[in-house]
């Protein structure tokens, strides 16, 4: 039993790996992702250094506070073509008639986009390194912040992938994903909660990606936040598998 499970995982990895590699490389073949990555770095650095020179203070915390808003544009840009393009060019018919499970294809798509996001995010590591050279940097905040950013990014990507699977139009996928991520981010914010009370407010606050990110960006690791991100990401990946599988019965 144990051996069988192990060999199942092995064969899954063997199924996933070539797809993941192809998807990952294809990000570097597309200009859109480059453009957004460049914009991401320029904007985030500009925000940071504006503050840096104005108030002569370097706080990674503020930078992390700004990050989710930039991710709102970066993540949909990464995921918008994932399924939409496959549908439009009908390569989906090739992809999903390979001897590979739908769920494995979803996982391959998720991790290829996740690795791309991680690389873009990794390029911003120049900031904390530079600050560390110039003065003191709170490494706890930096580590927690980056882990939080990866988790938040993963969640956003899983939403973007799901929405990309609903349409064959990349622009539609981009805009809908942006809206969905925005809603998920702000449902727990003060403005929304102002009008609500009781258990609903509590639920919204739990659902909100912002609530969970804010503590991490302050350098606080909380298992509940990590559980939130991973379970919600898995939930959206599951929905993605279902939405792809629905072609069979429609």
């Amino acid at each position, binding site marked *: 039993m144990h051996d069988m499970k192990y060999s199942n995982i092995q064969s899954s990895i063997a199924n996933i790996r070539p797809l993941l*590699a192809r998807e990952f490389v294809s990000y570097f073949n597309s200009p859109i992702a480059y453009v957004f990555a460049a914009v991401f770095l320029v904007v985030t650095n500009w925000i940071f250094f504006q503050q840096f020179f104005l108030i002569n203070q370097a706080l990674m915390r503020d930078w992390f506070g700004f990050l989710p808003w930039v991710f709102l544009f970066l993540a949909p840009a990464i995921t918008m073509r994932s399924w939409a393009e496959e549908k439009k060019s009908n390569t989906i018919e090739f992809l999903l008639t*390979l001897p590979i499970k739908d769920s494995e294809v979803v996982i391959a798509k998720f991790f290829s986009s996740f690795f791309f996001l991680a690389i873009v995010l990794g390029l911003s590591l120049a900031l904390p390194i530079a600050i560390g050279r110039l003065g003191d940097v709170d490494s706890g905040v930096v580590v927690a912040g980056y882990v939080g950013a990866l988790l938040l990014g993963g969640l956003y990507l899983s939403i973007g992938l799901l929405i990309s699977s609903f349409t064959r139009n990349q622009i539609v996928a981009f805009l809908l994903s942006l809206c969905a991520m925005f809603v998920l981010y702000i449902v727990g914010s003060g403005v929304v909660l102002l009008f609500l009370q009781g258990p609903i407010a509590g639920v919204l606050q739990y659902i909100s990606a912002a609530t969970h990110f804010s503590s991490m960006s302050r350098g606080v690791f909380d298992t509940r936040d990590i559980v939130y991100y991973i379970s919600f990401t898995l939930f959206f990946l599951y929905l993605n598998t279902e939405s792809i599988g629905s072609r069979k019965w429609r």
Partner: protein
Amino acid sequence: MIQVQNLTKTYGATRALENVNFQVCPGEVLGFLGPNGAGKSTTMKIITGFISPSAGTVKVGDLDVVDNSFEIRQKLGYLAETNPLYTDMKVHEYLRFVAAARHIPSSERSNAIKAMVQVCGLFAVVGKSIDALSKGFRQRVGLAQAMIHNPDILILDEPTSGLDPNQIVEIRDLIRSIGKEKTIILSTHILPEVAATCSRVVIINNGTIVAQGTPDELMRGSSREVVYIKIKGDRGIIRQTLSEYHALGAIKQYAPEGRDIHAFAVEIKEGDGRELLFKAAVSNKWTLIEMYRKSENLEDVFRRLTTKENGV
């Protein structure tokens, strides 16, 4: 090898396939013939596991297409109708990717790719981006993709559509040579293609099978013969007289030649109609100007079975 039983597929309210039954024996090249929208692609998508049947079963060997989809997919090569390719890749990159996704061991991948380049004639384009290829070369890349893992069964959905006449002949030759070793289902609405490549034919229309057999059987099975005659005489009397022979069927009149030479296409129900017509002409003192017999060809069979006016 492939057994399709009572296959039905509905898309919402539209019925794409209804009670389709046929089988494909090992080593056969089955031509799947029908007008656009008849249900050819739907059947192929079900066999390849891209979509599921609404009712009925498809078996490949002992494997069921719903329960054992992954085992079946390993034995299949599939060229979809639109020939989907990742156009941002180069030909060799793409084939390498397919080889990896098909679990060809990494030590054998290069050989598998070389074999496909050879078989499909891709030498000239192997380093080019798929974007830049002509339709004919893309189609060959599609075929290479479908065959790279040496599958027992090939499902080819309109493999020659959109190609020029020379390319069509090349692809057909290719399919014929592959067909010596593999089981192939090939869909088309081009009739000479069937006669040129297929050992058996299934004709499908509006989601149901209207005929199946070897190309010869289909033509013989119909056994419809038409005799074309041109007679000098009075049109009304000729028509009247001929319609009284019970060995003759429908009489169609077509463009007359001059004022009193009338042309008819006479369907023959039994016997050799030519003799009968000749004697009729003699006894009525008509002048027989021209007469020839034509048996129904595959094109006629197809047209008769797939157009509403004469169908079924």
